[in-house]
């Protein structure tokens, strides 16, 4: 990751599959991507799983308000706002 890498937070509330596909795409330029699932538990389709595997490979941080979201670190909705202040861009989906 270069010195000019940006920190980008993607907030997922709906359209999970597209939000995750976009998150993965955002890693292409070497930026540090974190995903915050603030909505329903992630629906695991093949496409979603492939994108989550890719996000892991690209060392993205995955957070979710749902304990059941495997592979995501559990975070409370109250913890998210302060965390968002660390990011250059906040992209809500």
């Amino acid at each position: 990751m270069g010195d000019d890498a940006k920190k980008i937070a993607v907030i997922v509330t709906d359209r999970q599959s597209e939000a995750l596909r976009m998150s993965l795409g955002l890693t292409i330029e070497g930026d540090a991507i974190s995903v915050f699932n603030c909505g329903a538990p992630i629906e695991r389709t093949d496409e979603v799983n492939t994108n989550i595997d890719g996000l892991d490979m690209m060392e993205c941080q995955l957070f979710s308000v749902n304990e059941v979201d495997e592979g995501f670190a559990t975070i409370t909705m109250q913890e998210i706002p302060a965390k968002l202040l660390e990011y250059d861009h906040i992209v809500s989906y």
Partner: protein
Amino acid sequence: MKILHIIKEFTESGTADVVIEDHQNLGQDVTIFRLKEDRDYAKLVDLIFQNDKVATW
């Protein structure tokens, strides 16, 4: 930190409300721009670049 929260016309309350309220409670300099009530785009663009961070909901 100066933070601009842009609320679009069809945004349902929920995540955005929690984040905005918390940012205010954390003592951040929060500006809220509601597109349903205000469509002064020149003002919006000024705010986008005057603030350190922008979140669109």
